């Protein structure tokens, strides 16, 4: 059996740095190889070549010239930063990794690289997602294309917990340029698994156990009524082993919803359990009556989408 490949889509952003750390930990636990993929978007290259192209600031709405020189300088800086980040990874603990830099269309480049990967790790909110925690277009298309286990990483959104005024307080206490809090702020938050169909439950349990082991966290499984736990050998074995700590909770099937927001009962469960990561299968959207991409976008935590086993 070949060593599993963990593919992480990377740029130089702080969120990307965090995703890289998670991917590295996963690769180590799996004794696999980490492949860092940096895509130089061909559309950006093409766009920067036009004399009339401008970049419109997301913050101010003001436009400024955007040419190839600017783009190339930025890309060179990003590569340099990525290389530095990767070098840090095996400084203390050995890790096999390599950086792939490709130029081309982003989604196609990622899909091509993902074909040989067992895990794909990328940020939930991509550049094209605009403001807020919407799902990035690349992530959305990867979800729709099925395939590997997809780890959609997301920085813990403190706003969702404490939006009341913490921004003012923090800016007063620490200055306006406070860095993003690391995702491991709450070390005891559980790995949450959603067992929503008999067909995919076993795969979700297996993935949840891997993640709980990797992250040394307890696991909380929500089991939809109707699924027989006795038919899940991984769950039975896990229960017998007793490690990592495991809680299984039965949940009722949610009534069908007509809006696109997340099921409130599920959302509250996730909040109360303080999920560090949510593992679900690619039929979760169908079971809960919502598009999977919308469901994942609304979950305020990193998500691992597990593909359904072949029929």
């Amino acid at each position, binding site marked *: 059996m070949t060593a599993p490949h963990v593919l992480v889509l990377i740029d130089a952003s702080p969120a990307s740095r965090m995703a890289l750390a998670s991917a590295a930990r996963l690769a180590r636990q799996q004794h696999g190889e980490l492949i860092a993929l940096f895509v130089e978007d061909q*559309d950006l290259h*093409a*766009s920067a070549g*036009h004399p009339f192209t401008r970049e*419109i600031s997301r913050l101010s*709405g003001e436009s400024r010239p955007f040419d190839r020189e600017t783009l190339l300088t930025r890309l060179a800086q990003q590569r340099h930063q990525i290389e530095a980040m990767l070098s840090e990874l095996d400084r203390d603990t050995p890790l096999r990794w390599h950086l792939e830099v490709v130029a081309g269309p982003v989604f196609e480049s990622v899909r091509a690289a993902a074909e040989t990967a067992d895990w794909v790790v990328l940020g939930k909110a991509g550049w*094209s997602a605009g403001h*807020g925690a919407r799902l990035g277009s690349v992530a959305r298309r990867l979800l729709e294309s099925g395939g590997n286990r997809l780890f959609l990483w997301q920085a813990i959104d403190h706003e969702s917990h404490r939006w009341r005024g913490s921004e003012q307080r923090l800016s007063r206490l620490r200055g306006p340029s406070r860095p993003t809090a690391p995702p491991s702020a709450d070390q005891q938050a559980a790995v949450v698994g959603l067992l929503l169909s008999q067909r995919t439950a076993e795969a979700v349990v297996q993935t949840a156990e891997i993640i709980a082991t990797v992250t040394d966290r307890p696991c909380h499984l929500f089991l939809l009524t109707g699924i027989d736990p006795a038919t899940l050998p991984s769950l039975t074995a896990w229960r017998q082993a007793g490690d990592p700590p495991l809680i299984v909770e039965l949940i009722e099937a949610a009534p069908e919803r007509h809006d696109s927001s997340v099921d409130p009962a599920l959302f509250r469960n996730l909040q109360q359990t303080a999920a560090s990561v949510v593992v679900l299968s690619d039929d979760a959207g169908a079971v809960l009556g919502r598009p999977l991409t919308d469901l994942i976008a609304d979950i305020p935590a990193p998500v691992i989408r597990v593909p359904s086993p072949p029929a």
Partner: protein
Amino acid sequence: MADAPTRLDADQLYRPCHPGSLPFETTAELEPPSAPPGQERALEALSFGTEIGDGGFNLYALGATGSGKYAVVRDFLEGRARRDAPPPSWAYVYNFDDPDKPRLLKLPARAGRDLQADLEHLVDEFRTAIPAVFESDEYHNRIQELRETYKRRQHEAIAAISKEAEERHVAMVSTPNGFTLGPYRDGKILDPEAFGKLPEEEQKAWQAAIDELEAKLKQVLQQIPKWQKEAGERLQALNEEMMRVAVGQQLQALEDRWAHLLDVTRFLGAIRDDLISHVNDLEDDSSTVPEEILNQYQINLIVDNAELHGAPVIYEDLPTHARLIGRIEHYFREGALLTDFRLIRAGALHRANGGYLILHARQILMQPFAWETLKRAIYGKQVRIESLEQLYAVFTTITLEPDPIPLDVKVVLIGDRLLYYLLAEYDPDFAKLFKVQADFEDTLPRQAENELDYARTLAAIARRDRLRPLDRGAVARSIEHASRLADDRDKLAAGTRPLADLLAEANYLAGASHAEHIGAHHVEAAIRAQERRAERLRERAVEAILRGTLNVPTQGERIGAINGLAVSELGGFRFGLPTRITATARPGRGQVVDIEREAKLGGNIHAKAVMILSRYLGSRYAPDGELSLSASLAFEQMYGSVDGDSASVAEVAALVSAIARAPIRQSLAVTGSINQLGEVQAIGGVNEKIEGFFRICRDRGLDGSHGVIIPASNRPHLMLDQAVRSAVGAGRFAIHAVDRVDQALALLTGLEPGEADANGAFPADSLNRRVTDRLARFARATRHDRDHEHRDPDGAGPG
């Protein structure tokens, strides 16, 4: 002929108090007196001063030290205060508008601690109620809805642009900093080469579309901060609503409970507003209000009158500036001195507000700035807490300016008379602010009813100081001692402190002898013990006289020398001793030289006395002519200052002896002052003086010739020691009372002074005739000298 002097009998030297006259066995049977005996005037003044309204009618209780003024004033004021209602309690609270100026709350006497408890309870409730609301599902759901709405709005606005771009074949690509727009065909952005090959019209159309979309995108992106602001406002409104929910019920309940006190309900309203304004300051992890904010919702109850059953009566034993008007404490944090309204501390004026404040005048005058502070507070009718550093800008630190407290207090100063008269003389404010003087008597008449009142006072002292009861003998001896302390057989010393000290000592002696009661012998032993402890100096002086170091002969006769009597007082112990007075006489021009005065050892009163006796000699012996006398007077072996006029009779006798060359009996000592007419007047310390001379004579051996000449007007003051009385009773010592100088001269010289006839001539062989004859010789000698000078004006003598 002059009236004969009166030789006093032993029973004229003392007024005993017979135990049998006292209608009780021990003081345990006696109730305390309803009012201090003999102090009606002072009590009347206290009554007037405490009942009259404002206008500077504060009081000064004046009287001798140890006269028991404080106890009387305190008892009186406490009795008076019981008739008044307790004054309000006072508290400081945080001023939300101006934190440096804490607000004052005036509360009914018993309401202060209720409000304090209510607010403590309220703050406790805040600690749980506020997190409960802000951690609730509802709050989180509403926050989530708000966020979703806000994000959706942004997303949809940008998605609309993106969709329009797509329709117009323009790609909107994200960059790390924003967006770019480019011509889009066949799933990708056209590169510049391909674009350049397009017809110019098409290129322009695409560029126009891009420009238009860019403008729209800019517009949307520039809207986002406004939407953020709007979202922030909605969030703030939500938070405020939640805070109102969290605290509203408790605050409303308190507002209803305290609706009758407008200031309190205002403060509660301010708490509500403040909490809402601090909704963004809740602790991150627990949603609790930070303690430093909660502390602002409590009160600093600086004066709590809940336990009072009348007006307060406060005595401040250390009336410093700060202890009078209160102070603001500071705490040290990170190198700075900080404070807040909870560190305001009340002063005596705060605690006494609505009642009475007792101060010792001497103590307040000794404290820097305290007197001015007190006057300013009384004048301004308010207490403003200001440190001396603030007042005089010595140095500054962060401090507060609390609201001043309206002041309604009667101040009673206690002090001695000298201080009262000095203040009245030199401090113009004093007369305006302390208009009522409560003048305490030093003595009270010794009558049967007063003796019983005095016994009640002793009973009260014994009870107060937890002493054994006094039996009637002890009371009688104490009454006698009080007469002696008053220097008057018909009076009793009003001061209670010396008596209290004596009784404490007697009680100790009674305890040592396992007695159930204090008896007369215990009191007597205590008196002797007090004397013994204090008499070291007297013993040394007596020893010096007995050994002849000090020349005080008590036998034989001398010309121009006499034993006078002086009283010394050191550390509260008074004793008398004889002093040697000598005189010389020679021709001159009517001069009596006071050697003490010349040596600057004599005081003004003594100087006056010498002038009086000079004029007496002149009018007595040279009424129609010049007194051709040059005389001198001196107190021998006295190295300290001399003052008073009680040696006048002795000085006249010494001068007469010197002029007439008539010897004086040294076995007698003399005391008394005279006026210009030769009448003998009363002096002070008569008992000590007699006992002082008696002691010397007794130690040298009494032979019946010894005695003391005193003014007849001092007879009521005699309360002499048992030893003196016994010697007088046995005829071994005599006390002569005289009205006129001639009576004393007769006793001292054994010569009849003689009265002048119609021509002014004294009988032959009389003492006064010898005086006038000698003065006549002086006159002739003086005239001779004067004639000689006239003949030889240059002063050059023959020869």
